[in-house]
């Protein structure tokens, strides 16, 4: 290449690069893009947020409080199942069904923080495996095998936990008749509910200060925690937990059966409890974000609000909208995936919005911030 050609080429390239840049900048100035983000990032970088209270309240007032409620409700479910076993009538069956749904609520809310002992101690699969291994369940029921809490514990996770109990209590929707439940099923139901109660108690102890105190590992992040080297890591864990469940509800729990029009993929299909399950998942996000379960604490919202009040207000609205939009899907969900396509699509979109704000805005805010 001759030198003057080179100069011309260089000149052209520079000019075109400048042109592209200036068009971009003019475009930005006219639409106002970028300016908000820059302010927010600067604010986040400059302030130092002491996350101790947020993390402590998350660990104790949200996570431990939810697990405590779960364990209490599992105890009530066990009581109801024992009553059904003692006197298998329709009233007792309906009480047990209601107790199952009541215990399901804190569990689904706890799916917004599926990390720590619930995972490392194998409790999530023991409590919530899906699908139920119905071939093997029939095998066990039809055998002479002893049915105790210990014998159930030795079985696969697909033969115990919420969905096995659900299958035995509801079978197909809420039309189950007490007289259809065999004595062997009642025996299995009692033993497997005892096992569920043992697992929820284990989970609660794992977080309690008087137990293994995982709450302390989270609350003392960046200080005495052996798990989290910094408060930022623990704050990221909180946001990650919310992202994972938003993703699962939007792109898995609702979308999979909806896209395939396949009712066999629906969660909690025996009890027709799917819509409550999904709403409680998003309520779990709300609990983590607002720092509350039964008692109010300091949530992530205070941190977000301190940096970007508009984002805080927007996200709170988006979460509530997602809960309401899921609630607007007519029951049962497994019929709505084909009969109420628009309502289901609206719910997917609303939860996706929550997921996007968490990923694009709130996680970014946490990662750009300085904590104590």
């Amino acid at each position, binding site marked *: 290449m001759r030198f003057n050609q080179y100069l011309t080429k260089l000149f052209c390239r520079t000019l075109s690069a*400048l042109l592209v*840049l*200036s068009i971009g*900048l*003019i475009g930005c*100035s006219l639409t106002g893009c970028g300016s908000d983000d820059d302010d927010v990032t600067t604010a986040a970088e400059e302030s130092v947020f002491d996350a101790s209270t947020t993390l402590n309240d998350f660990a104790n007032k949200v996570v431990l409080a939810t697990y405590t409620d779960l364990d209490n409700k599992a105890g009530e479910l066990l009581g109801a199942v024992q009553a059904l076993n003692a006197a298998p009538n329709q009233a007792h069956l309906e009480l047990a069904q209601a107790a199952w749904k009541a215990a399901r609520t804190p569990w689904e809310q706890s799916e917004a923080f599926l*990390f*720590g*002992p619930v*995972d*490392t*101690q*194998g409790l999530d*699969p023991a409590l919530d*495996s*899906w*699908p*139920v*291994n*119905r*071939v*093997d369940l029939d*095998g*066990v029921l039809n*055998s002479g095998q002893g049915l105790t809490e210990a014998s159930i514990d*030795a079985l*696969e*996770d*697909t033969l115990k936990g919420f969905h096995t109990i659900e299958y035995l209590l509801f079978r197909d929707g809420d039309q189950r008749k007490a007289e259809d439940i065999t004595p062997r099923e009642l025996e299995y139901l009692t033993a497997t509910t005892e096992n569920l109660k043992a697992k929820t108690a284990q989970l609660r102890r794992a977080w309690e200060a008087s137990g293994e105190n995982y709450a302390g590992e989270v609350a003392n992040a960046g200080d005495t925690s*052996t*798990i*989290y*080297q*910094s408060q930022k*890591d*623990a704050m*990221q*864990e909180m946001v*990650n937990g919310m992202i*994972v469940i938003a993703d699962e509800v939007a*792109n*898995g729990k609702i979308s*999979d059966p909806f896209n395939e029009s396949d009712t*066999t*993929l629906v969660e909690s299909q025996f009890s027709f409890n799917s819509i409550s399950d999904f709403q409680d998942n998003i309520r779990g996000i709300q609990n983590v974000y607002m720092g509350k379960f039964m008692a109010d604490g300091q949530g992530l919202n205070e941190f977000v609000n301190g940096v970007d009040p508009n984002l805080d207000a927007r996200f709170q609205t988006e979460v509530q909208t997602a809960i309401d939009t899921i609630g607007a899907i007519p029951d049962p969900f497994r019929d709505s995936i084909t009969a109420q396509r628009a309502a289901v699509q609206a719910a997917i979109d609303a939860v996706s919005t929550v997921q996007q704000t968490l990923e694009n805005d709130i996680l970014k805010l946490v*990662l750009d911030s300085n904590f104590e």
Partner: protein
Amino acid sequence: MMVETVKSNYISYVLFFIALLCTLIAACDSSDLTDPAKMEVSDKKFSGGETTVFDATSHAFSTPAPNLSADGLAKHLEGDVEFEAVFVTVPAEVNPGLGPVYNNISCINCHARDGRGRAPTSGEKLTSMLFRVSLPNPNGDGTQGPVPVPGFGTQLNNRAIFGVPPEGTVTINYTEGEFMTSDGVKVHLRTPSYKIENAYQPLPDDVEISPRVAPVVFGLGLLEAVPEATILALADEDDQDGDGISGKPNYVWDVQKNGLSLGRFGWKANQPTLIQQVASAYHDDMGITTSLLPRESSDGQPQYDGRGDDPELSDEILDVVTFYVQTLAVPARRGLDDPIVQHGEELFESAGCSGCHIPTLETGTLSDVPEVSNQTIHPYTDLLLHDMGPGLADNRPDFLASGSEWRTPPLWGIGLVKVVNGHTNFLHDGRARGLLEAVLWHGGEAEQSRDAVQGMSASDRNALIAFLESL
């Protein structure tokens, strides 16, 4: 007209601003470029090159590579769902095909959060560890692989669907011992012993047993993309350079090639490709057949169901799960500015650890996975076999790997096992209860390095561990 004037003034203002910006950017760039330490630090953080993720939470091992395209991410997420799929007894509407004999019911149940398994604690069920079995092969040259035990195959399936006998159970016992550092610090080391019990039919007395805990599954696409020539160049089978370290490639059966290929994956590098690794896990661990391995693991045994429904898993699922493990992100290093970590890194070098745990490799091209191609990575492995001495030996050869040879495991992410998996159990059988125990178990070719660590001051040993924890 008015608007146009405003705009043209605006353009000159913007052009001036751009010029100013360019000057500033140039200045910033050059100051970074003139500081090699700064450049190096920023490079080292990126353990997985462009697939690196900055996350030190329980999700550190289970995040999609950030450089995935939209299509790639969608495929990765499909694989994620399948990796979590729980299998049940046939017939079933969802996920049939489990067993009849198996070790676990889903990928994720062993590789929890795509992380590391461990040996069961006393009274606990065996969930993320399994046992390979075989018969002695005194005259074989190793190229045929392990000799199956009649009625058991090459892996003990300790679980089975209802009504079918599991192949047996294993009891684990530990003998506590002590190791003394030269400055008088006692380190407790436990030696495991294994006994197969409740075998459904008598086992030969000379059966060889090899324990294997589930390894982490992130970063594997990068390791698959390391050119064979790179690995072979690191090999020094007869220790011609006299550094006491050999480094031997394993050559193992490649189902797709119908011949031998370089082994890369597994504790003894006995799998040549990720697709075969994944197919073998479905086959051996869950009893699920694929087009690669279409014959039930129980075929020829009384547990065999004879259903003729193989392959039980579609090629599409095999493909997305393979892609999933190829494209999981590698977590970034932490604490690089900490002088203790920096000192620990120097000690890692001076003690000779980096002779096998090679810090930096360049990947080549992995077809259809551009995300892992042409990356500078920091896996801390040479993917070669090394004799680790009698203390760690399983005495069960696996293709060319002898009974005391193991593949150098990658160390990336090792400091995050606690936050992800809630434990710090290391080595192929999880016997080490912390990183120092794991280091002190090193023997054979690593004995000199072990001795160097033994002879370190307490603060140096702590620095070495701090470095490992930063990975």
